């Protein structure tokens, strides 16, 4: 099963990282190829919240379905996949540790792309690469968004 894993420093308090991580409004900016995200119930993450996202792959529109599985405020955030859509299986685990310089974040993504969903015209290796690239960018974008500051406070 493909996996993407990284540990990185965010120069911001865990509260800032957590607020980006758990707010579904930020999802389209975290994953480059996700176009929009609709959460049910709406609002910040709660255990059991469903997220339904649409994304693009070349000229095609695909669906990506997840649910929030675990929330330990400021420490651990776990997302799992739901049936249907682009992935046969999907799991994302984000762990936060407060450090002097800000927040150390460990991210792990494990997934299996659904070949049945995409059909034979898509090469599974390219699909895996596209997913991995989005997950790597997710972590870079999480850092960038969490480190933003208010006007005049920098």
């Amino acid at each position, binding site marked *: 099963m493909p996996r993407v894993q990284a540990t990185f420093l965010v120069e911001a308090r865990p509260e800032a990282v957590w607020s980006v991580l758990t707010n579904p409004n*930020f999802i389209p900016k975290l994953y480059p190829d996700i*176009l929009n995200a609709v959460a049910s119930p709406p609002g910040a993450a709660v255990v059991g919240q469903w997220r339904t996202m649409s994304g693009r792959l070349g*000229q*095609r529109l*695909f669906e990506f379905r997840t649910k929030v599985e675990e929330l330990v405020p400021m420490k651990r955030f776990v997302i799992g996949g739901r049936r249907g859509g682009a992935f046969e299986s999907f799991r994302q685990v984000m762990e936060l540790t407060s450090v002097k310089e800000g927040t150390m974040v460990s991210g792990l993504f494990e997934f299996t792309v659904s070949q049945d*969903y995409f059909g034979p015209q898509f090469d599974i290796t390219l699909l895996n690469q596209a997913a991995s690239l989005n997950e790597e960018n997710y972590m870079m974008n999480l850092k960038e*968004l969490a480190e933003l*500051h*208010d006007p005049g406070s920098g």
Partner: protein
Amino acid sequence: MTRVEDIVDIVSPRSTVWKVLVDPSFLPKLYPDVISVETSPPGMLKVGTKARILAKLGKVKVEAHVEVTRADDEVCFATRQSPGGLFSTFQQTVLLHADAMDTKVKVVFEYTLLGDYAATITQAEFLDSRTADNLRWYTRNLKEICELLPLPS
């Protein structure tokens, strides 16, 4: 006042363009520098919906507040600024016209930045140019998103 105007042919029915226009969850993908949008009330944009838009400029957060003033089904969509944030005036008008199976879309933005707020962020000319770039990208991204084909085929 700065004015940005675009006319584009979208190879997609008017109903598809309208769905993207009034769904606030697409706004962060339509404007390159917008990072999140909160609307009140939540759900699809309709007359009276207020949106708090958060954007980034370099390492700084920028806020804009707008309100929907027109939402004539599949014909006309308009917003204007509400108090607070980046703009002292802002007006967006989007007109849709069906052309066989395609849609001709005219988008007009007119805005003035709020000088005091802009001064806390960066040089006014740079902020104005970056804002105009975002508004130009809105139309291109609208076309790109509306023309995507659904999977599974």
